[in-house]
């Protein structure tokens, strides 16, 4: 174990904020899982997997370390350990993906895998504006932007509500800002549709030891990052509190 070496094959600018890195290796990962990615000299970060074969990671230039990773060029090396975490396990045949911002990356991976298995897939991709919109997934895609510069104006809920009224879905898979996931989970509960979310927390070890990614008694790294919507709604920290680096609870 320890880290494995991944060399960058391609670095594409997917949105104004997100770089999609393609590597020269494949890993046995399922959609929803994550890896710990380390650029020596910078911090190691948990990254959700955008594709397993070949390995792809969508990196948002959020912090210092992610920014350095996002600027990596062909041939440069990233050190990876994992995959860790519980993957998505969608039910039935008709899946609806709901992704906010770069949260759509693991859902696109799930959609690709789902199509191979014969699932019918529709996706809602939301972002602040057109330049932050992630690329579409296989199946039917709907877009929403907060400022209306592309797709429907508003957040993902603007597209989700009419879609749920119109069509029949066996499950919803959702990844994005926690407040958005909370709204999606509440609606799914109301409509009695199974719903899975992917909850991100600050992590140190990634394999269930350090306890930093705790949401109450639930650990994002091994109990998650995917979680049933109903279970998340029962957790008083979901959508409200997260731990900072010291372990202090801070409002989201």
């Amino acid at each position: 174990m320890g880290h494995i070496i991944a060399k960058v094959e391609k670095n594409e600018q997917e949105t104004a904020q997100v770089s999609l890195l393609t590597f020269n290796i494949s890993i046995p990962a399922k959609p929803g899982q994550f890896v710990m990615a380390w650029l020596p000299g910078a911090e190691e970060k948990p990254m959700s997997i955008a594709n397993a074969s070949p390995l792809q990671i969508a990196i948002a230039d959020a912090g210092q370390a992610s920014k350095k990773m996002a600027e990596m060029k062909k041939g440069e090396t990233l050190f990876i350990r994992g995959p860790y975490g519980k993957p998505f396990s969608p039910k039935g045949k008709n899946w609806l993906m709901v992704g906010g911002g770069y949260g759509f990356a693991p859902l696109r991976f799930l959609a690709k895998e789902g199509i191979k298995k014969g699932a019918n897939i529709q996706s809602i991709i939301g972002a602040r504006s057109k330049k932050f919109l992630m690329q579409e997934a296989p199946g039917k895609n709907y877009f929403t932007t907060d400022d209306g510069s592309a797709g429907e104006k508003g957040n993902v809920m603007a597209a989700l509500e009419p879609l749920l009224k119109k069509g029949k879905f066996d499950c919803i898979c959702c990844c994005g800002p926690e407040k958005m996931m909370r709204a999606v989970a509440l609606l799914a509960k109301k409509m009695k549709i199974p719903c899975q979310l992917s909850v991100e927390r600050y992590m140190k070890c990634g394999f269930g030891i350090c306890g930093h990614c705790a949401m109450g008694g639930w650990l994002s790294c091994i109990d998650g990052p995917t979680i049933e919507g109903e279970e998340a709604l029962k957790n008083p920290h979901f959508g409200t509190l997260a731990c900072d680096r010291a372990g202090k609870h801070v409002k989201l």
Partner: protein
Amino acid sequence: MFKYLPPRSLISSPLPPKRNFPFTPLQKKKSLLPLLSHFIFLYPAHASYISNFGHINIGNMANLSVKLCGARMKSPLVLASGIRSNNAALLIRAGEEGAGAATSKSCSLIAREGHKNPSAIEYDSYMINAIGLSNPGVEIEKKEIAYAVKNAKIPIIASVYENSPQNFAKVVKIISEAKPAIIELDASCPNVHQEGKMFSSSCEGASEVIKAVKRQVKNIPVSIKLSPNVPNIGEIAKESQRAGADCITAINTIPAMMIDVYARAPALSNKYGGLSGPAIFPAALRCVNEIRNSCTLPIIGGGGVGSGEDAAAMLMAGANAVSVGTALWKNPNAFRDINLGLENYMKKMNFEKISDIKMK
């Protein structure tokens, strides 16, 4: 390997005694179901056997309960400090998963972010970490511990650390308001008064910190967590007892380093870290045994324990309770499985209670 000896309750019960226990730690995934269906199949008319099932096969014979510094524990297993222990909910969870007591993550007077990632990495038989004692500060930790003390069904051990005997006394005074069952001093951190040497690296250091702390708290037992990185851990334990300690916790992680040869850099951002996991188990056994041979205090013994047999060995070395930490990395159900393994071992050996587990 062992000749199967039927537990006494089976002999006196109407059930035929000769039966190999169908779940061993190796077969843990099969769980209780095959046993249950076995009974239903063999004794369909005796439904009462099934309702008695837990009583006959698990509860009665191997009694896992222990007493540690006055606290009653349903199992000798203790969640080690720093492992999944950042908040009250996680301490409560450890109890639900089978731990007999749970230790909180060490806290200090003021909040600390800890080291940057990579701060913990797993390899085949060990883990190396330098989390860097991240904690939200004693005032916040106190509330978490108070909540856990009220709501967990197991004793809570509060772990603290500081950089001088005076600060240790201060942090202990605050945490004692949460009324934990035991206060554990993480004495493997540098002492600013002794040129940055660990408190637990010398008899004087250990004695100094215990005396300072014991002046502050009289009604809560104090345990000192010792580092294995000394030539005389027994002497330090003896001196700790003389200074007034009520318990010894051992061992802390072993100082270590890992280098990623492809990155040509230390694998941890902090360069050095602590080694834990199966690789350190024999080293831990020796330390615990040396402590047992030199002092009479109860010992929370740990370091690489991952199975029922490991726990039994730790008890034989002289521990009164067994701490489990890194085992949770490869097996999230470690508490349940180690308890089951220990129980199986006790049945094989015809031991009724934990204090029967001794070397010849």
